[in-house]
């Protein structure tokens, strides 16, 4: 699955997701990726987030919406992503997934659970090409 966020020179944002879902799923099963607020979400006045992982769990928590709302409340992208994941892990301790978030001013962060680390890639004028970063999972 890919979840992506773009923010332009005016601070306008967009998000997108694309996936072929879980292998060997029951025919007709849909994960969280196409669900607005779960797979991804953007509020142009606040920021944007997108997630990846176990869509059968993720869709119950609208974690991308939650992350954006936490940024509205003053959390950084990393703090907001971690907060959204902790709400999931409290109910599903074996959950595997990650969230990437960008605030309105272009700050970004990520959080993950169920992996050793989570890698994501980004590009900006400050980077010389595309960079890959990783975060240690909670």
């Amino acid at each position, binding site marked *: *699955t*890919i*979840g*992506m*966020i*773009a*923010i*332009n*020179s*005016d*601070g*306008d944002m*967009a*998000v*997108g*997701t*694309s*996936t*072929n*879902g*879980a*292998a*060997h*799923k*029951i*025919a*007709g*099963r*849909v*994960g*969280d*990726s*196409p669900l*607005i607020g779960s797979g991804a*979400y*953007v*509020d142009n006045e606040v920021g944007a987030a*997108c*997630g*990846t992982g*176990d*869509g*059968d*769990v*993720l869709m119950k928590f609208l974690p991308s919406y939650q992350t954006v709302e936490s940024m509205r409340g003053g959390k950084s992208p990393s703090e907001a992503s971690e907060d959204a994941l902790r709400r999931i892990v409290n109910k599903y301790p074996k959950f*595997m*997934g990650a969230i*990437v978030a*960008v605030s309105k*001013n*272009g*700050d*970004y962060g990520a959080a993950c659970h169920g992996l050793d680390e989570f*890698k*994501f*890639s*980004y*590009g*900006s004028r400050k980077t010389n090409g*595309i960079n890959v970063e990783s975060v240690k999972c909670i």
Partner: protein
Amino acid sequence: QSNYPLVINTWPFVKATEKAWQVLEKTDDPLTSVEQGCSVCEELRCDGTVGWGGSPDENGETTLDAMIMDGPSHDAGAVAGLKRIKSAISVARAVMEHTKHTFLVGDAATQFAVEMGFKEQSLSHIDSVDRYLKWLNNSCQPNFRLWVSPDPSLNCGPYQPVQPATNSDKTNANINQQSHD
């Protein structure tokens, strides 16, 4: 203080990020940047978890889910269970731009895509066929069925429902870096 423009995506899908960044630098259009970036992953079949030829279902078929959302207008479009169309996120954008709806699914989403000019074609690849055959030859493991007979942890279907005997741990141990949303 602003740190934009910027593109960022889950997983180290560098080619997709590169494309999104190129489009953003050229057009300053975040919606097209996201669409084109994710489209690269659909074409490259990133990790086998994006695009055609990956994650076959119980019938061996690959179906696609995608969504796109525009910040300034708060408009969005999505498709799920999309069959026989490779460009899932572009179909999602078509839902956003050419309908008053938000979310289309299944064969009807395919019909819409064809009407919008997208080419209908098989989403099978030798990788997805091979993965499906290995799954069949491994007694259909891993398996997402629960409380059915025959025992889905040992057998393929067809299945019949049985009375749940205990609370179930529905955690998907089958979800990992090669199989996820």
